[in-house]
């Protein structure tokens, strides 16, 4: 069977959504009969908690704001360090060989194992949340940017060499622009991870300005089913929004000339 490439008709995902909501109602009804409504609350109650519950919604929005700030702060730091790290490694083979293993090791560390230490060292507030976010989201920035910087072909580099171009000129006029499509791939992945980092950070660092992760825990412990689901859904939407935002940014910056999707 051949698949037609192009835009998915808008109604197809919608059919799935309707089916899923239908299943959700069925499950909620079944749990309600067992008097366990807080485990799977009705969708309309969740929606109400998200947008129209006078006691819950303001708190949800406040925590959403806090998580967004943590995710974006972490992401900006991950971008800055990640790109600088990649640019440094792209300068010479021996620098890459010396530094790349640490990027991999950072990626391999189970962050959760480090969390108690991070809390003890940096407190149980904003700073620790951001550090966790940076650690979770930095690797795709490093690896994709490095890949992009090294994707420049030899003839293009020689074109610059023949004019006696400096390392800096080659970086700014050739290698960095050439790396942008790949950098954006890393950016989109890192952005998604930064939301995860912000929520994970909340699970352990509950002081200061609490985010969605804290709200999920608090709601769960109070058997507030609609609140739990509302916070989880909001966190998911934040992830989707960030993913779409960076996809759109990519199209804006490199979509005109780059073939890569």
């Amino acid at each position, binding site marked *: 069977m051949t698949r037609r490439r192009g835009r998915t008709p808008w109604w197809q995902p919608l059919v799935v959504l309707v089916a899923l909501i239908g299943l959700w109602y069925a499950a909620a009804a079944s749990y309600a009969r067992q008097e366990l409504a807080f485990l799977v609350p009705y969708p309309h109650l969740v929606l109400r908690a998200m947008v129209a519950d006078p006691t819950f919604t303001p708190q949800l929005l406040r925590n959403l704001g806090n998580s967004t700030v943590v995710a974006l702060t972490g992401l900006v730091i991950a971008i800055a360090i990640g790109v600088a790290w990649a640019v440094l490694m792209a300068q010479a083979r021996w620098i890459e060989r010396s530094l790349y293993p640490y990027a991999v090791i950072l990626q391999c560390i189970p962050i959760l194992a480090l969390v108690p230490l991070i809390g003890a060292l940096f407190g149980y507030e904003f700073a620790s949340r951001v550090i966790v976010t940076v650690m979770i989201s930095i690797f795709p920035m490093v690896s994709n940017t490095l890949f992009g910087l090294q994707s420049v072909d030899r003839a293009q580099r020689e074109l610059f060499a*023949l004019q006696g171009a400096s390392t800096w000129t080659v970086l700014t*006029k050739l290698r960095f622009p050439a790396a942008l499509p790949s950098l954006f791939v890393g950016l989109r992945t890192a952005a998604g991870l930064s939301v995860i980092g912000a929520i994970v950070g909340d699970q352990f660092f509950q002081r200061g300005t609490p985010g969605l992760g804290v709200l999920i825990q608090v709601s769960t412990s109070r058997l507030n089913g609609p609140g739990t689901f509302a916070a989880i859904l909001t966190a998911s939407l934040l992830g989707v929004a960030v993913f779409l935002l960076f996809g759109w940014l990519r199209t804006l910056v490199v979509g005109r000339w780059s073939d890569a999707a």
Partner: protein
Amino acid sequence: MPVAPSAAAPTAAVTTSLLEFSDVEMTFPDGTVALRGVDLTVGRGEFVTVVGPSGCGKSTLLRIASGLEHASAGTATLRTDRIGYVFQDATLLPWRSVKANVELLAELNGVGRAERARKAAAAIELVGLGGFERHLPKQLSGGMRMRASLARSLTLDPELFLFDEPFGALDEITRERLNDELLRLFVQRQFAGLFITHSVSEAVYLSTKVVVMSGRPGGIVRTFDVPFPLPRDPDIRFTAEFADLVGHVSHALREGHA
């Protein structure tokens, strides 16, 4: 019968050589000998084409000429710093428009904005890309990309033009048309040209001199002077004399390969 004064000697004798190879040898770090005993001169108003089997070091020859690599033995003398280098691929920067691509080399050499734009506009006009200034490389055909690449080199106003199989990836018709335009440029500007190609007929059509190289290690087997006058009529390709010369070059190529 009076002896003709030397001033009336054919122009080839009085050309100043811009590129001179003397006993050039190239051995790569892994021990492969790519070139051996190469003597070659290219002067103003000369268009020298090098044909040879794949891997015979043709490209290495060009890389040494341009200074991208250095000969391991012998001397390569360059008497100009205005060198145009046309790569196998167009090597355009995909994020730059045709105009910005053509301006690149001048930009790298610190030429001011207005002067850059003027040079680029003239070069774009010269290669027949007028009207495509704002197009991106991916919106152009292979032939048009090559024209843009050619225009980019022209902004340097090169005295020595080096071509590394620039039209190898193009279809026959586009290749022939670009050959004609290159010849027109050559007649107009009288630069010194060193052109690498696989195609014997392209070599004969373009050049004032065809150099045949042998397989590894690459050395010059034979040199043919091309007697056809410039500017050349494209129909010269269908004459018996042209076919004869193509035949001779092909023979030499085959012998060198054996």
